């Protein structure tokens, strides 16, 4: 079973190496290779769920990797979304060109994210974060259009700021503890008792700013509404669905739950930043007329929910936050893929020019309803349960105001997603689009998979929460 960890790490890079030959053979070979390379890690991850127990470790070329419930939850998210995006990309990439390169970059990104989740020391975490990030800068600019390149540069610059902050933070931790390995760090820093050393407080601030930038938490969000919309749709889906969570939330969770000693203020900061992001993201999303920009702002809002859940400090809040990570990955990538399908056929992202597309694109229309209802938290879709847990957690922690705001924002969320539904899908067909056809089969298949996942994780929420979410939350609370 441990060897699965090795395969999860190795399959994507091996496929990257083979990709030039495969593309030379033809598009079909590149497609097959890419789908297999994205699918195998998903299969291995799912097979690891029952076998996990108290955790697994694995040594690969002298490097140590380990898997616990927290990593596993994020691994499932990364590989499930990556697989759907890869299936989608096999059709979508046709109008971009450079099929082999696109797949290779996407696989490098997946490798970076997976390795980040499996590694066991802070420096490697930083290293693999950079691997994933570099691939994503290139992918954002992959269309080689003005706005894509511009926002890629913006993304690159702000990420460079973020990672340098993180690097300084790591340095400070190393100065204090003399090690960067997670378990040793936890032991070294926990024993001190008394007040937390000033250096560590500074490091904590740097981590929050750095990883907060990566997670696009307000006020560090400026790059996201540019980068996510201008990227090719499968990349937008990966960035909004997965990357901000692994690069931002996962790193924050790892560092602040288990490594650094407990700093009370951090929770408050999480709550404040989370509430700010939740509200401001939703309000800004309301005023967008660009389909993907609206989705991007809504990601900021949903990240806010996750941060609130983390900041509450009770098990219920954590279960809600982690479950929301899982759910948001599914429905937000679904919605980005929907918007990509619309853009693919119509050539525009301006919702004012659309209308009644569900008659011409029934699959896209129906699945976008699933996404809308999930993100607004309408039961029985998955988003409802995670928001419910966060709200119940907030009430249990005595944060009635935050619970009320979270409820209000979910109403607001439904409001702006109904605008999308009204202007894009639900309504009379805009005559301009009379001859539009449904998106190609692979793209439709990917959204159907994700929409089914949204509904099924909603209906069988108890299996998901019991199976992979709660164990992760228990570990973060300090139990085993």
């Amino acid at each position, binding site marked *: 079973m441990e060897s699965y960890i090795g395969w999860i790490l190795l399959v994507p890079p091996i496929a990257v190496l083979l990709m030039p030959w495969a593309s030379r053979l033809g598009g079909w070979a590149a497609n097959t290779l890419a789908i297999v390379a994205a699918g195998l890690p998903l299969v291995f991850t799912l097979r690891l769920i029952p076998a996990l127990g108290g955790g697994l470790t694995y040594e690969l070329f002298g490097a140590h990797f380990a898997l616990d419930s927290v990593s596993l939850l994020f691994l499932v998210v990364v590989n499930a979304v990556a697989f759907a995006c890869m299936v989608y990309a096999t059709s979508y990439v046709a109008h971009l060109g450079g099929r082999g390169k696109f797949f290779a970059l996407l696989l490098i990104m997946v490798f970076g994210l997976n390795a980040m989740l499996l590694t066991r020391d802070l420096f490697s975490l930083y290293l693999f974060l950079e691997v994933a990030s570099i691939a994503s800068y290139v992918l954002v600019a992959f269309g080689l259009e003005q706005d894509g390149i511009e926002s890629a540069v913006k993304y690159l610059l702000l990420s460079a700021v973020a990672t340098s902050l993180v690097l300084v933070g790591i340095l400070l931790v190393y100065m204090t503890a003399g090690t960067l390995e997670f378990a040793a760090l936890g032991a070294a820093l926990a024993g001190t008792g008394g007040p937390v050393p000033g250096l560590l407080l500074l490091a904590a601030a740097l981590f929050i700013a750095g990883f907060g930038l990566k997670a696009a938490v307000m006020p560090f969000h400026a790059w996201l509404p540019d980068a996510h919309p201008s990227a090719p749709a499968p990349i937008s889906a990966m960035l909004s669905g997965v990357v901000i969570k692994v690069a931002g939330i996962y790193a924050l969770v790892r560092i602040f739950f288990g490594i650094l000693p407990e700093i009370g203020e951090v929770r408050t900061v999480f709550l404040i930043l989370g509430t700010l992001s939740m509200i401001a993201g939703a309000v800004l999303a309301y005023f967008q007329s660009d389909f993907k920009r609206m989705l991007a702002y809504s990601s900021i809002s949903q990240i806010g929910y996750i941060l609130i859940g983390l900041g509450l400090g009770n098990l219920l809040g954590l279960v809600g936050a982690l479950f929301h990570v899982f759910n948001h990955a599914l429905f937000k990538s679904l919605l980005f893929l929907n918007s990509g399908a619309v853009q693919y056929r119509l050539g525009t992202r301006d919702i004012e020019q659309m209308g*009644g597309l569900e*008659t011409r694109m029934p699959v896209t229309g129906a699945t976008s309803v699933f996404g809308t*209802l999930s993100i*607004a*938290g*309408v*039961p*029985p879709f998955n988003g*409802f349960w995670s928001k*419910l847990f966060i*709200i*119940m957690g907030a*009430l*249990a922690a005595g944060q009635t105001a935050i*619970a*009320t705001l979270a*409820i209000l924002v*979910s*109403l607001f969320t*439904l*409001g702006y997603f*109904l605008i999308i*539904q*009204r202007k894009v899908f*639900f*309504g*009379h067909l805009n005559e301009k689009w009379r001859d539009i056809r449904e998106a190609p089969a692979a793209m439709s298949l990917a959204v159907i998979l994700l929409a089914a996942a949204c509904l099924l994780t909603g209906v069988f*929420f*108890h299996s998901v*929460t*019991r199976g992979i979410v709660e164990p992760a939350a228990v570990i973060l609370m300090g139990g085993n």
Partner: protein
Amino acid sequence: MESQALMVILVPLLGSLLIPLAGWAGLRKATGPMAVLLIGCSHLLTWPLLGPALAGRTGESSIPLYRWIEFSTNIDALAVFMAFTASLIATLIAVYSLGYIEHTEHEPEYYFIVTLFVGAMMGLVFSRNLIFLYMFWEISALACWRLIGYFRDPEYVWKADKAFLITFGGAVFMLLGFALIFTQYGTFDISELRGKEIGTAALVLVMAGIFSKSATVPLHTWLPDAGVAPSTITSLLHAAILVKIGLYAFARLFCNGMVIAPEAQTWLLVLALLSAFVSASAALHETNIKRLLAYSTVSQIGYTFLGLMVFTHFGYIGALLYIMAHGFAKGGLFLCAGIIEHGTHTKDMTKMGGLFRKMPVTGVSYLICALSIAGIPPMAGFFSKYFVINGLVEGGRIAIATLAILTAVVTLLYMLKSFRMVFLGESRGEAHGEGSPVMVGVVAVLAVLTLASGFLLQLPYDLVKVADGQRLVNIVSLLWR
């Protein structure tokens, strides 16, 4: 009994998923009969529950899912009564749809959502866990969203969004109220909350949800707007399912469950009376037939709330009978309006007139239903209205009872006005003959039901009496605690 109730829920809820599949498979024609079959099955499955319910038997079942979330059901006379009437009216409306919705663009979607809607109602009626109550509540809201916007005009879709946002907004606040109740008592189980006093904040939040769903002033504005939906849907919303959800939830949560403080009770009664009176006055001034009927619903809902909120025998019995009587009559009226709209291509009553000669069956049915709503004996509406007023007197609320009678007079006025404008006098516009036989037949059946439930009041009365007894049992057990 428990598995029977589960079937009542699951047949339409899961069966509805087959309908879009049939639509994709090219069986558009089959989707209508499928929906009728599923909803009809669900109704027939409630018949065997009537016997045990009349005998006063109750049942419970529970499937724990995660922590305090369990899928638990509660089968008693109230639940069976609601499930029986709602599914009966829904079945009739589904049959009527076969004639009405034919040849429209999104037929499979229509039948899918209608069946899902009925399934959600059945689920809500039997739910014992507040979270699941909320879940079915929201499923009905999203069904309502798709159905109100069914004709897809930009204005219609906007009104559908409005209805969705108001009812969703009310419901999420209700959810917050449920969560507050949970923080106080540590449970979402309605039967465990029996006899517990609800806090003011939680009460306000829960009532926001109930009033938004049951279109009570000032949260009623979406209901008249929802008249842009196909007439079958407005009929379904007004008569069988949607607005009854709030009434049922009130009966379940407060008449059978938690206790409201006396001061709050007075406030609620005043709100309900205000809603009944204001909307009756609004109906008096409407010339759009569907909006008139919608305001009338708001008014009748207020009446029903009066019966529930006074917490007396007569009030409770009257309110439950009211739900049934109003369901038959208002369902019939909206379906009549559908036939009239088909025949005249307008909803404006000033352009109608003299339709009685061309549509005799519809005219007679309309008159019977309208008189029932207005509370004229021997229609069922009279008895329910009488019981509610009697209940108000029984509870010592003489002033409110007097004003309620005044409202009844206004109701008679606008009902007769609408009948006169539509059916009597000179014809003021184009008019074809009766609707299709199926449609007219269903309308006639509803009119007969309205009459019969008045003449044979004993049958529903027995069941409602049992429900009242079960409510009393709860309060007695509270006194003993």
